[in-house]
């Protein structure tokens, strides 16, 4: 192999990369916060909510979990305007990520709720709490604590999956790599560098989530 690796372009193009990292981080931050919130709401609906709501939420969750994120993104960005809903790239990307993570975290959180000992619900009821109050004050936090590792992995997966938002011209890290390779014709190097950055982001994100977890759940009895 007589290929010469060249990384001189880094000096010129690092602002694009930094900007791309910023957008990727912003996407996952909004996606994670709103996505998990949506997931909690849906998990409540599926596990304990009113009967009419359950099939609606179930359909949403199954539709999202059984279709590619890329198609969800295209549907939102290209398809919804024909219903009169015009979205910017970043808006569409944000919505797609929230909707996507919402469905996955719903299932993860629901599993946590369902693994709660029956006695917890009964204890809540015996203290005259309504089912929702029991959910809110007794069940939710221990459930989240149990599934926090699984939820964290899902957030990392969604962050890595966000690289396809470059396909609707949202200017994330992958977009920067595409841009650089089209200018420098150093495709392999550009993608190597961005892949390495993604790897670092994934590791840091996982650690950040672990820290956040130990912050939200300070030494509460698990299991």
């Amino acid at each position, binding site marked *: *192999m007589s290929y010469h690796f060249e990384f001189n372009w880094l000096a010129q193009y690092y602002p694009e990369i930094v900007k791309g990292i910023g957008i990727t981080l912003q996407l996952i931050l909004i996606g994670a916060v709103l996505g998990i919130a949506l997931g909690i709401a849906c998990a409540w609906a599926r596990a304990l909510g009113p009967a009419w709501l359950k099939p609606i939420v179930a359909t949403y969750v199954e539709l999202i979990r059984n279709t*590619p994120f890329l198609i969800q993104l295209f549907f939102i960005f290209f398809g919804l305007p024909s219903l009169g809903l015009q979205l910017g790239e970043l808006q569409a990307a944000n919505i797609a990520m929230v909707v996507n993570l919402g469905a996955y975290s719903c299932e993860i959180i629901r599993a946590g709720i369902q693994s709660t000992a029956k006695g917890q619900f009964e204890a809540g009821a015996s203290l005259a709490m309504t089912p929702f109050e029991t959910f809110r004050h007794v069940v939710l936090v221990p459930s989240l604590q149990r599934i926090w590792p699984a939820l964290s992995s899902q957030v990392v997966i969604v962050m890595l999956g966000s690289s396809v938002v470059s396909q609707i011209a949202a200017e994330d890290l992958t977009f920067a790599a595409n841009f650089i390779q089209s200018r420098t014709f150093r495709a392999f190097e550009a993608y190597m560098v961005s892949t390495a950055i993604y790897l670092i982001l994934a590791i840091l994100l996982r650690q950040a989530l672990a820290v956040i977890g130990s912050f939200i759940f300070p030494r509460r009895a698990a299991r």
Partner: protein
Amino acid sequence: MTEFTLWDILRNLLLATRWTIVLSLVSFVGGGAVGLLLLFARISARKAVRVFARCYIELFQGTPLLMQLFIAFFGLGLFGIAVPAWLAAGVALILWAASFLAEIWRGCVEAIAKGQWEASASLGMGRLQQMRYVILPQAMRIAIPPTVGFSVQVIKGTALTSIIGFVELSKAGTVVTNATFQPFTVYGLVALIYFALCWPLSKSSQILERKLNVAHRNH
């Protein structure tokens, strides 16, 4: 301009779906084979081998599949071969799927009680014999539901190969959209076709899982 009926759109999409299915099968089977090797490496008695497998898994699970596809596409090109999209797609998906399957299966192997290793060792079995006759037959039972579940991820993963130009369902969706200017209908149909492929697998994975849990409780 020609008018496209719904049937025209659907027919074109379904024709492309064949390639989604073929690529999914190749990736799943190939990923399973590589994943099995990786599993053995991951639980090898030799530390260097274990570390290698761990790094491999960390690398492929810690980076976007899209990047892996780009690198396969442009990286294989460095060897002076013109890489067709299907080859890059297949290679990347196989290596990617292997990392996940190996990790899923490792969980199943580790779920087998330590006593099974000890009892088989005390009967004089070597490591490979223990795996072959005692551990894997038990691990396989519990590995089936999550493995079926992962096949859904593989099918969805193939959508990304459209980005490096492999013509499968997603790519067909874009092509048909550009011809018909009906993105809502086309992407809606594309989503439904993916759903039709994935949902039965998701559902069977859940059912198998539930059966296994019931069987477990009856012990």
